[in-house]
């Protein structure tokens, strides 16, 4: 089975993101970028299938030159090769999905994995839009997957339960936390990754379909008060919740 995994280069979740000087983007100075955590689940799932059924895992990213570091991270986990679509500032989801689809339509694959959501703009849209552009079914935010002949059965959580979805293949499937436990790259994996091929393919990320008006910091929560220590503080807390906060 040949599997494509779409991955994105995003700021580490620990990073204190700052607004850039244009007031419309983030300052990437001093920011540590990583492989989007949801994409780790996607890569892991693809590797498990490859180990089980054979085939090749190809990573694809649209992003700046530095995004190749993220591709190396996925290659170090065990992916076979990677495609880099150069684009200094990936625009909105629709434009990214269009650009990815344009390249992917000429590649042979049996299945496409994505992460549920990129931990930068938290859009959770690219996989679904990509599926539409490729004319494929999609199953988003899955926590369990079983492959059968030509079909896949996946679990996706919704408010109040789990939907068990059956889809024909190929499909675009996006991974949620819980799907698997991503592996650590081994030293051998990391060293081998440095020698695996990364192919640059020109791409057109087009005109953005969304205009960014401004970026601001949300209002900070003011630190509250320590009511007291241990069980003795409980009556006071209850009183405050009733009389001051008026929530119970």
């Amino acid at each position, binding site marked *: 089975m040949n599997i494509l995994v779409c991955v994105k280069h995003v700021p580490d979740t620990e990073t204190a993101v700052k607004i850039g000087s244009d007031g419309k983007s983030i300052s990437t100075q*001093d920011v*540590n970028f990583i492989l989007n955590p949801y994409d780790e689940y996607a890569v892991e799932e693809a590797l498990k299938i490859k180990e089980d059924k054979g085939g090749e895992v190809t990573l694809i990213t649209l992003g700046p030159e530095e995004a190749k570091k993220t591709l190396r991270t996925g290659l170090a986990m065990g992916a076979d090769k990677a495609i880099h679509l150069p684009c200094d500032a990936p625009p909105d989801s629709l434009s990214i999905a269009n650009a990815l689809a344009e390249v992917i339509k000429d590649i042979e694959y049996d299945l496409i994995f994505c992460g549920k959501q990129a931990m930068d703009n938290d859009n959770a849209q690219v996989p679904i839009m990509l599926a539409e552009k490729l004319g494929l079914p999609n199953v988003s935010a899955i926590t369990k997957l079983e492959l059968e002949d030509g079909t896949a059965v996946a679990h996706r959580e919704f408010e109040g339960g789990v939907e068990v979805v059956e889809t024909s293949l190929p499909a675009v499937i996006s991974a949620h936390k819980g799907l698997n436990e991503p592996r*650590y*790259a081994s*030293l051998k994996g990391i*060293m081998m990754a*440095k020698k695996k091929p990364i192919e640059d393919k020109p791409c057109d990320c087009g005109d953005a379909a969304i205009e960014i008006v401004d970026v601001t910091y949300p209002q900070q929560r003011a630190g509250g008060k320590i009511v007291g220590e241990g069980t003795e503080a409980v009556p006071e807390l209850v009183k405050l919740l009733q009389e001051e906060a008026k929530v119970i």
Partner: protein
Amino acid sequence: MSEEEKFDCIVVGAGPAGLSAALTLVKAGVEVAVLERGEYPGSKNVMGGILFTPVLDKLLPEFWKSAPVERFVTHRRYSVLSKEGEAAFDFKTAAYGEPDYNNSWTVLRAKFDRWFADQVEEAGAMIIPGMMVSELLVKDGRVTGVKTEPGGDELNCDVVICCEGANSFLAEQVGLRKPHDPKHLAVAVKEVIGLPQDEIESRFHLNGNEGCAYEIFGQAVQGTFGSGFLYTNKESISIGVGSTIHDMKRHELNPNDVLEGFKKHPAIAPLVKGGESLEYAAHMIPEGGYSHMPKLTMSGLILTGDAAGFVNASHYHEGSNLAMASGVHAAETVIAAKEKGDFSEATLSGYRDKLENSFVFKDLKKFQKFSGFLNDNPHLLRDYPDSIIGLLTDYFRISEKPKAQIEKDVIAKFRREIGIINFAKDMYKMWRATR
């Protein structure tokens, strides 16, 4: 990579020592891999203050034009604190404001080390972050490679340069170093506090990219054997305290509380006021100096930087330049060993000779008695600051008392609290300890 692939040299740790070693090696065509346990080089590094750069400027000439340095240090200040007061020696010169900027830069290591590592990688070294060396592989008394975590993979090489910093448990594993003596191991905690750039410049009287370095004794660390420090970055200040573990224990102090107390001191509070805490970290500093140095080499292994205890713990407070210099010397030793095809201890001990001829050992020797001296005379840092500031407080107090009377009283108090003979003795001892 084939199973047999083997590097000429493995460097453990991508700090100043490791990166200087690796850069020197790749420039000479030696195949080198640098393993760093942090998520990226610098992610775990804590240094609070001045990066001293004479060696770096040779490795990467005019590095400051592209490196993420914060400020060049033109302003140095030493002071002692009592509970209420401060007495200071303050020095500033515009002469340090021109290339080479007196080789003194404030940096944030998370940024700087990453940049340095990028240069080294570009020069051809393989840098592998996120990988910890858990064990040195030893065969017949010779180090032959390393074992790594996560994964437990092994990697072979002719020689390992160990640049793992203060904890240096690998050096301990192979018996080059005994467990640390808490008298000679300091623990430092450091906080980075964000402030607007112009606020920093006006609070500390700095023009443009000038920076300052404050070293503060006495009540800064509640009279323990250590000091507080404060350095200016572009848009933040690094503030911290460090004292020997032994002394902290003896005084039943916790370094976090000491730092909190330091920040609240009336002489310090206005300097940090209104800032936003950006990061907080603790780290060890080996302060044993020349007399507590580990054995530096064995077949297939060289120790450098903090791992070898190369810190000048006097008022110079240098570790970064000793780390870089020792990294370069270790690399040169490896290059020579490679030419000979011999990595035995006999060949690698050439490293020691190089250090003897460099400022590394000369400085460590000069101050070798200093730390022992302060350990033996705890009253110098515990009692003197209070007494001296007390005397100055009396001396400058304005009242109807005639000045002659004030002088007399102050001298009498000085005799009573310290004593002229004791004071002269202490000063002489201090001078001797730095000869």
